[in-house]
């Protein structure tokens, strides 16, 4: 009888713990999904900036190269 009672108590403790952990893990999943929702747009914008930046850089370098060719005597 006493044994049965302890077993019952243990089951109840496990159940309570189980509910607690499910709640915790569910909230973690919810938190994660909240963070994930915001991220997708940013990387595309950065990539475009790099591409434009690279094109400007090449254009500027080309202008300097042309100036050098025109004044080859001092370069």
């Amino acid at each position, binding site marked *: 009888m006493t044994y049965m009672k302890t077993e019952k108590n243990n089951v109840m403790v496990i159940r309570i713990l189980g509910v607690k952990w499910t709640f915790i893990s569910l909230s973690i999943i919810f938190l994660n999904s909240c963070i994930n929702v915001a991220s997708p747009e940013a990387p595309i914008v950065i990539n475009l900036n790099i591409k434009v930046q690279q094109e400007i850089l090449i254009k500027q*370098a080309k202008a300097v*190269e042309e100036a*050098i060719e025109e004044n*080859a005597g001092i370069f």
Partner: protein
Amino acid sequence: MKHTEIKSKFGLKSKIITGIVGLSVLAGAAYAQGRDPAYQSARDSGAVGEKTDGYLGAVGNQSPAINSLVRKNYLLRKQVYTKTAQAQGISVERAAFFGGCKNIQRTVPGEKYQAPDGSWKTRGSGAPELDASCP
């Protein structure tokens, strides 16, 4: 037998022609550069080299004549860089840096150039060491 002789004769002739064409191309290239003879010989002898900042530098301790050549060349190049920088809306230093990338690429084997670590290198037959920021 006769055929081989003709062939070898032709081979020699074509070699001579190639040599003449090659020399005239080299002479033409030197003429097109339009460099002052003193400047050209300073480059050839390795007394001056191309720096990463876009200007000439005296390699080691040099004569007053070489040092004055470097100073005068600095002013002339700065004018060209300044003009381009204004047209492009960038700083003179930035334009000069791009110039340095190009100048180092334009060196021919035997000429001196500055490596990204600041040391003087002699240009070999391969590509020179360029700064990682060169376009």
